[in-house]
């Protein structure tokens, strides 16, 4: 009887222990599907501190990052207003600088408790490539030239093409899927335009037409849904990978009633 009571007590304690564990989940290195943010960068100068939190991975990585900022002044956290973030990459001393597409303005979201948005990095940090962050809170507080790291990620898919008529560069960044399944997959991407590799404009009013294709089996699939803009710069559609193996998803883009992608459109590669 004593053994039975002891067992019940131990079992109850173990249930309580696991139930009271940390509910926060470290985001896996995947497409952003949750609001589980983890801190990935801290930039401090005097009494001012900016933190970058990621819901995408436990580090900043190449490609799309769903991020949020926390801002502290004299250890007091800010909970209104906006943040602006300008990442700059230098490859050597006095080298030309280039940037990456980021959200123009990160507004504070009460439910998340952060200034939320995204950052897309086109290159990783290495021994000759350095990312520096330039932070701005409400156009009042500034923190400049804070070094941070961006790591490589194999699932990276950013497609760059040139619009020959305007000579502008366009970037299509894959948001999902990074781990595609056989069958229907939600396909999300963003479109940015730049003419100087420094300033990137988020393009929200383009038309996209996708065509999944198995390059080795030489066939496609049916019932695909062309991506449409659903807000926050994200285009969402559906891609049907009807059998296992390597698939391309060609993405033809029209902007201002003109096809801007080359005749062989940019393609994303998947292997469900």
């Amino acid at each position, binding site marked *: 009887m004593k053994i039975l009571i002891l067992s019940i007590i131990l079992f109850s304690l173990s249930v309580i222990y696991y139930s009271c564990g940390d509910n926060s989940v470290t985001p896996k290195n995947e497409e952003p599907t949750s609001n589980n943010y983890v801190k990935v960068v801290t930039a401090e100068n005097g009494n001012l501190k900016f933190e970058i939190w990621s819901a995408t991975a436990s580090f900043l990585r190449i490609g799309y990052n769903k991020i949020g900022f926390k801002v502290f002044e004299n250890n007091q956290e800010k909970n209104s207003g906006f943040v602006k973030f300008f990442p700059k990459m230098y490859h050597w001393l006095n080298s030309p600088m280039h940037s990456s597409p980021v959200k123009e303005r990160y507004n504070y979201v009460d439910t998340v408790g952060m200034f939320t948005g995204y950052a897309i990095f086109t290159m990783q940090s290495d021994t000759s490539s350095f990312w520096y962050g330039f932070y701005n809170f409400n156009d009042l507080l500034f923190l400049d030239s804070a070094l941070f790291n961006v790591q490589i990620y194999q699932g990276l898919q950013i497609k760059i093409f040139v619009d020959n008529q305007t000579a502008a560069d366009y970037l299509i960044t894959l948001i999902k899927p990074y781990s595609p399944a056989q069958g229907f997959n939600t396909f999300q991407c963003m479109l940015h335009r730049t003419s100087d590799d420094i300033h990137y404009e988020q393009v929200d009013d383009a038309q996209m037409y996708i065509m999944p294709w198995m390059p080795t089996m030489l066939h496609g699939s049916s019932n695909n849904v062309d991506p449409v803009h659903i807000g926050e710069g994200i285009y969402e559609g559906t891609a049907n990978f009807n059998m296992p*193996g390597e698939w391309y998803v060609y993405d033809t883009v029209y902007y201002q009633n003109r096809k801007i992608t080359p005749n062989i459109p940019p393609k994303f590669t998947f292997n469900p």
Partner: protein
Amino acid sequence: MNIKIISLVIVIVLLINIKNSKACNVCGGGTSDIAVLALDGRMLFNMGFMYDHYLGIWDQNGKWRESDFTTNQYKIAVAIAYRINKHFQFGITVPYVFNTSSNTGLKQSGSSVGDLSVSARYELFHEFQLRKSGSKKKIDNLYPYLAFIFGITIPTGKSDETAKNEVDVTGKGFYSTSLGISVIKSIIKNRFQMSADLSWQHSFTNKYETYFGSSASFTKQAGDKFNYSMTVNYIFGSEHAVSLTATGFNQSAYLINDNVANNSDERSFNFILAYTYYPHIQFRITPSVKWTFPSNNFGRNATGSTTFNINFTYYIPDYSIK
């Protein structure tokens, strides 16, 4: 009389085998069965039922990849063959195809007429024929059965160009022709035979203006295909026969817009076990199963499936054919 009947049965068994593998439904129909007449047959009617269960694919590295979906194809094929003379016969096969798929979000079933096949064969030699030996005629035991085979497949089914869904695809969507040779040789007379079939298949370019209901503009041509099969056949008494076939194909790369599509060449290798029962001299029933080894390097850029077949064949004899 009994010897004559047994001989006829043997010839029929020699000439009729199930050799063609079936493509999976998402790739569009498949090759059709070819009904073949024995030397004493004037006309033949065949009704075949097929169940093809798609398992997965071999990718470009020959790695086997399982399918997450249950995808099946059912086919009813009606075939007629007619012998014009001792050397020449032809046949027509018309299939009706049903497809099913468990791919969520997709239409679950579809059906229509498949691709129509017309074949002809010129039989240069038959086994066990009377031949001159000096001033006498005697039964020859040396010559094998040897035939040259010609075929054309007409895209009467729905392809990925005209269908709206994968399950509606019942045909290849392009014309193809084939040229082949068939050899059969008895190792033990009336008991054990071996046969080999080789064929070269050429497909013609198809210009796509639509693709699964969306507008398209490209041309596609399947590479030339080399089919091969080797069969051993054992006869029990006069009413039963069992055959085992090893069969496969190699296909060169596709052409897309007249450019070679790299890494798109295909190959696969399968086995077929068939049993034939003759309840009557003019009627036979042939169930068969085709299976593949779902493991690496038994194919490349090809689909793997398990296929069950049953054929009911009735023929009209004509003993005047010389």
